[in-house]
C-alpha cells in the first residue's frame, strides 16, 4: 500500500513538472495568443473608449468604471448566466443539506461557549468594519472598484467570522435565519429581473442601460439633479449584492447547521 503510494506520487510529480515545462514553453513562444504590450486588445480598447465617453454618447454606458459597465451593460447576459450558476449550485447544496438538518435538536437551550472574551470582542469589531466596507464596495461600485459580487462576498465574511469566533447560535439570534436569507435572496433576484426587463416596455432589449439608435428606450437616468446615479448599474449592483451575500450566508448557515445536527452520528 505504502510503496504503491510513493510510486504513484513520484509519477504524478514527474507529470506535473512535464506539464509545467510544456505550458511555459507554449507561453514563451507566444502560444497563448498575446503578451502584454503597449496596445491592448481592440475589444478592450472599445470598452475603455466608450464606457464614459461624454464627447460621443452613442455607445456609452454612463459609468466611468469600465469593468462594471462591461459586467452589467455590454456583456450583461454573461453576468445573468453566472448568477444562474450560483443559484443552481446553492440550490444543490441546500438539497444535500436540508433534510439532514435536525431542527428539534437545534432549538434546545443555547449557550455561547466560543472562544475567549478578547477573541469575541475583536471579532465583533472586525465584522462591523467588514460590513461597512462591503456596503461601500457595493453602493459605490459604479464609480470606484467593486460592485455587487465583490461587496456581496465581502459581506458574507462577517457572519463567517462571527460563527467561528462566537457560535452559530449567536448569528441566528442576530437574525441571520436560513428562511429569512432565502426570502431576501428572492427579493434580490426579483430586483434583477425587474431592472433587466423594464426596457422591453419601450421596445428596448433586455439589460439595456442607455439609449441606443436602434430602440426607443429613453435609458435609465444618469443624473437626477446633482446626484450621479450611473444608469441601471446602481440598481443592478444593489440587487446582486443582496443575492450574492445571502447566498453565501445560506451556504455557511446550512453547512454549520448540518455539522451541528449530525454531530456524533458518524462515530
Amino acid at each position: 500500500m505504502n510503496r504503491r503510494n510513493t510510486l504513484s506520487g513520484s509519477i504524478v510529480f514527474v507529470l506535473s513538472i512535464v506539464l509545467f515545462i510544456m505550458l511555459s514553453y507554449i507561453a514563451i513562444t507566444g502560444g497563448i495568443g498575446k503578451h502584454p504590450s503597449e496596445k491592448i486588445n481592440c475589444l478592450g480598447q472599445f470598452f475603455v473608449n466608450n464606457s464614459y465617453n461624454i464627447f460621443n454618447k452613442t455607445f456609452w454606458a454612463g459609468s466611468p468604471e469600465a469593468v462594471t459597465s462591461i459586467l452589467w451593460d455590454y456583456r450583461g447576459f454573461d453576468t445573468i448566466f453566472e448568477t444562474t450558476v450560483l443559484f443552481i449550485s446553492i440550490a444543490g447544496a441546500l438539497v444535500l443539506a436540508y433534510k439532514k438538518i435536525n431542527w428539534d435538536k437545534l432549538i434546545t437551550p443555547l449557550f455561547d461557549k466560543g472562544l475567549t472574551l478578547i477573541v469575541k470582542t475583536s471579532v465583533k469589531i472586525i465584522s462591523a468594519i467588514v460590513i461597512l466596507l462591503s456596503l461601500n464596495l457595493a453602493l459605490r461600485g459604479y464609480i470606484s472598484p467593486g460592485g455587487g459580487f465583490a461587496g456581496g462576498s465581502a459581506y458574507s465574511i462577517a457572519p463567517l467570522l462571527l460563527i467561528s469566533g462566537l457560535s452559530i447560535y449567536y448569528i441566528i439570534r442576530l437574525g441571520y435565519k436560513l428562511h429569512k436569507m432565502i426570502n431576501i435572496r428572492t427579493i434580490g433576484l426579483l430586483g434583477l429581473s425587474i431592472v433587466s426587463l423594464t426596457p422591453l416596455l419601450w421596445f428596448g432589449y433586455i439589460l439595456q442601460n442607455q439609449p441606443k439608435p436602434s430602440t426607443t428606450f429613453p435609458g435609465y437616468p444618469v443624473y437626477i439633479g446633482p446626484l450621479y446615479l450611473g444608469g441601471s448599474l446602481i440598481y443592478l449592483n444593489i440587487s446582486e449584492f443582496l443575492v450574492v451575500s445571502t447566498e453565501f450566508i445560506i451556504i455557511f448557515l446550512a453547512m454549520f447547521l448540518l455539522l451541528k445536527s449530525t454531530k456524533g452520528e458518524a462515530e
Partner: protein
Amino acid sequence: MNITNILLMYIYLIVFATGGLAVYGIISKNNLIKKIIALTIFGDVVNSLIIFIGYRLVPKPLPPILPSLNPDKALYKLYVTSSVDPLPQALVITAIVINVAVVAFLVFLVVRIYNSYGSIEYDELVRIDRGGST
C-alpha cells in the same frame, strides 16, 4: 532580449510553476479537503494569468476607471492611451464567483461523505468501500 522580456518570462514561469504544484496537489493528496484547496489554487493561477495578459506595457498604466466625472480632452486621452484592458478583469470576476460556487458545493459533498463514512481520507474511503471495517 531586454529587461522587460526577462521579467515577463519570470512571471510566466512563476505562474506555471504554481500551476504545476496545484495539479500535483489535486492528484496526489490523500485528504479530500487538501484536494479542494489545490483546486482553488489552480483556479487562481488561471485567473492571474488571464489578468496578466490584459496588462499594458506603458510607463504609468492606469486602472480602467476614469478618474473624473467631467473629464477634459487631455485627461480623457491620457486615460484611453494608458488604461489596462478591462475585459479580462470582467471575465475573471465571473470565473471567481463560479469557482466559489463550485467549491462550496464540493465542500458540502465532503461534509456528507464525512457524515456517511466517518473519514475524508481517500485510501480509507476505498478500503471501506471494498468491505473493510470503519
